[in-house]
């Protein structure tokens, strides 16, 4: 009997020692606790901007916002785990525009109707409002916008002896993809005729991503999803899409567009002078500068259009949005903060630190465009040519399947086979969501 007692004590004390020895609680912030005012928690990769805005907010309202940082690629997965278990760990939810629909479908977000006036909502760019509205309800307020812009390497062009009067191009009168391709051909012929230096014509920043590649098809008149959101058949295998796909594939084969360069390396190639042109986003301006390029090295212009489709040009839009967790215990406070961060002073702070395109027309101030002149173009595009991505709860499946398809096209796959498989995959995913309706 004594032995039994001793060994039980040993076992239990071992357990106790282990647990107490591991208790790092003293070190870590308590979730949801507050001394006086309330505390909101947020997970984001824009931690610098949010921290700054949070400081100001606390001064003004006494509400504390704890900002937790994680890498951009981890946010989606982490939030999925946290929200699917109904945890109230975060009050504020960062939703990448197109994901809003999926989050709402899974019951993760709280409607924001009570925290925004109609006037405030009306000020957001229409495409951004669309991205954050599901079933007529407003769920995720946009933090900013994005826009696609064409950049060119001045050094390489002058080395190749090519002179272009870029000032002639405006929003209404753009360079065409066909003209651009010609320029690229000439340049590469001069700069790297035998291909040994690895210099090529045009790069796409977010290559093989739905965000940019779909725009090629959109610019030919193609849509992203059927009007009722139930299928992509007849949409992505339409003639417009096939034209765009064939055009792109041909140029990859010719070597004008790159093959095998991942979206991780495309920007580096521009900074290192490996490609003459790169189709990137408005905030790429700031990245070029931080990669030690100056305005003597590079320039920019409006995204090209397709000859014969000048009035159908589609540019990218949409960016991260902020919403309130359906499981939050501080919804009222959270909603007010969302308003602060997207309509109020918080947004100004955010934009000045992160350099994102603004979410309303008024915010394209002289100060902002002074810091990033590319925003002039972004403003025009947001008002005139922005084309929103498919709004569907199955966006992740949609995006994964299409991404794969674009990459396969890039690698030379047969267009019809790839389209058939992709349509099947996406429709099967879409079908499951409509079943639960």
């Amino acid at each position, binding site marked *: 009997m004594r*032995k039994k007692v*001793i*060994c039980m004590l*040993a*076992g239990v004390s*071992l357990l106790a020692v*282990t*647990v107490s*020895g*591991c*208790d*790092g*609680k003293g*070190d*870590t*912030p308590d*979730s949801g606790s507050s001394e006086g005012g309330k505390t909101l928690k947020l*997970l984001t*990769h824009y931690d610098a901007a949010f921290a700054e805005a949070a400081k100001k907010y606390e001064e003004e309202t006494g509400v504390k916002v704890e900002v*937790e*940082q*994680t*890498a*951009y*690629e*981890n946010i989606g*997965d*982490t939030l999925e*785990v*946290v929200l*699917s*278990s109904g*945890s109230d*760990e975060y009050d504020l939810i960062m939703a990448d525009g197109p994901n809003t629909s999926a989050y709402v479908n899974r019951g993760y977000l709280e409607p924001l109707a009570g925290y925004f006036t109609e006037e405030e909502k009306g000020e957001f760019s229409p495409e951004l409002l669309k991205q954050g509205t599901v079933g007529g309800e407003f769920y995720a307020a946009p933090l900013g916008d994005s826009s696609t812009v064409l950049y060119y390497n001045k050094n390489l062009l002058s080395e190749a002896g090519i002179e272009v009067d870029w000032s002639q191009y405006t929003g209404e009168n753009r360079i065409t993809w066909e003209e651009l391709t010609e320029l690229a051909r000439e340049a590469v012929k001069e700069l790297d005729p035998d291909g*040994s*230096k*690895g210099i090529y014509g045009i790069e796409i*920043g977010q290559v093989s991503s739905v965000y940019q590649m779909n725009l090629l098809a959109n610019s030919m008149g193609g849509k992203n999803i059927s009007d009722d959101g139930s299928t992509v058949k007849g949409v992505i295998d339409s003639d417009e899409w096939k034209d765009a796909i064939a055009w792109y594939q041909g140029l990859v084969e010719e070597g004008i567009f790159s093959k095998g360069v991942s979206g*991780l*390396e495309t*920007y*580096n*190639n521009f*900074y*290192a*002078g*490996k490609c003459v042109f790169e189709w*990137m*986003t408005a*905030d*790429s301006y700031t*990245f070029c500068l*931080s*990669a*030690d390029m100056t305005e003597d090295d590079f320039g920019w212009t409006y995204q090209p259009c397709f000859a014969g489709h000048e009035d159908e040009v589609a540019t990218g839009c949409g960016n991260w949005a902020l919403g309130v967790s359906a499981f939050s215990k501080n919804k009222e406070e959270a909603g007010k903060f969302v308003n602060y961060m997207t309509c109020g002073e918080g947004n100004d702070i955010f934009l000045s630190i992160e350099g994102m395109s603004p979410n309303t027309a008024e915010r394209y101030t002289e100060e902002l465009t002074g810091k990033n002149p590319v925003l002039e173009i972004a403003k025009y595009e947001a008002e005139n040519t922005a084309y929103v991505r498919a709004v569907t709860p199955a966006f992740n499946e949609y995006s994964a399947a299409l991404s794969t398809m674009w990459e396969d096209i890039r690698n030379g796959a047969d267009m019809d086979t790839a389209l058939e498989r992709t349509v099947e995959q996406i429709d099967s995913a879409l079908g499951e969501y409509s079943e639960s309706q």
Partner: protein
Amino acid sequence: MKRVEKNLLGKAGIYLLLAIVLLISLFPIIYPLLSSFRTDNELFENMAPFNWHTIVPIHWTWENYIAVFQEYEFGRYLKNTLVMIALIIPGTIAICSLAAFAFSFYDFKMKKQLFALFLLTFMIPGEAIALPLYSLVNSMGLINTYAGLVLPALANGLVLFLFVQFFSETPKALLESVEIDGGGWWTSFSRIVLPLSKPIIITAGLMIFVNQWNDYLWPLLAARAREVKVVTVAVANFKEQNVIHWGYIYAAATVSAIIPIFLFLPLQKYFVQGITSGGVKG
């Protein structure tokens, strides 16, 4: 025992083979090591055509390391990881050695089934249980604490297995002599078995260290706050939305690889010994 295959290959042949395998093993490590001492632009500019400088930097610089430690607080994450491991190793060894002691020296009902249960944990994919595990740990209030990182890691089927194998080598005579002298299980355990287990303890410790040092998914989900974030999660910070800091990744990877290496090299003698005497043999 070692075997000399002089008649098949000759010493020179053996060294040649050793060198070739070494090159293959180490090159994917040396390349990032060298690349961590140059800027990203220099790296990409010199990729093609292939020359000496594709691998070796032209301008050696510490700037990647400086940025990684200053801007990104890498030192803090190193410390966090080491603290976490320092808590896991003794905990795991303690409970697994006790359990192995039970399996090796006692007969009891359900012994086979319980042992099989422990071995089963081997085959459980971390990703499959991540979601329910998160819910569980969250309901215990242990997210973003060291406890949340340490407790799930203590049940280690492989360590238990190693200990059981090792203990099975212990001569029964020694234990019987303890009994004759009137000692209990604790005496057997602490006076005889444990001291003999030094090699296997070191082996288990090294294995646990390497596994936890490189563990990625669970720390990502359970330990996001600065105070507990670990190295593997921190490395992902260098991949921003629009730009990847390759130099920083390589610097972090190099530091991250060097630490287990420096631990392993001096202790590898025990490691082999541990696996040999306790390991799976013919």
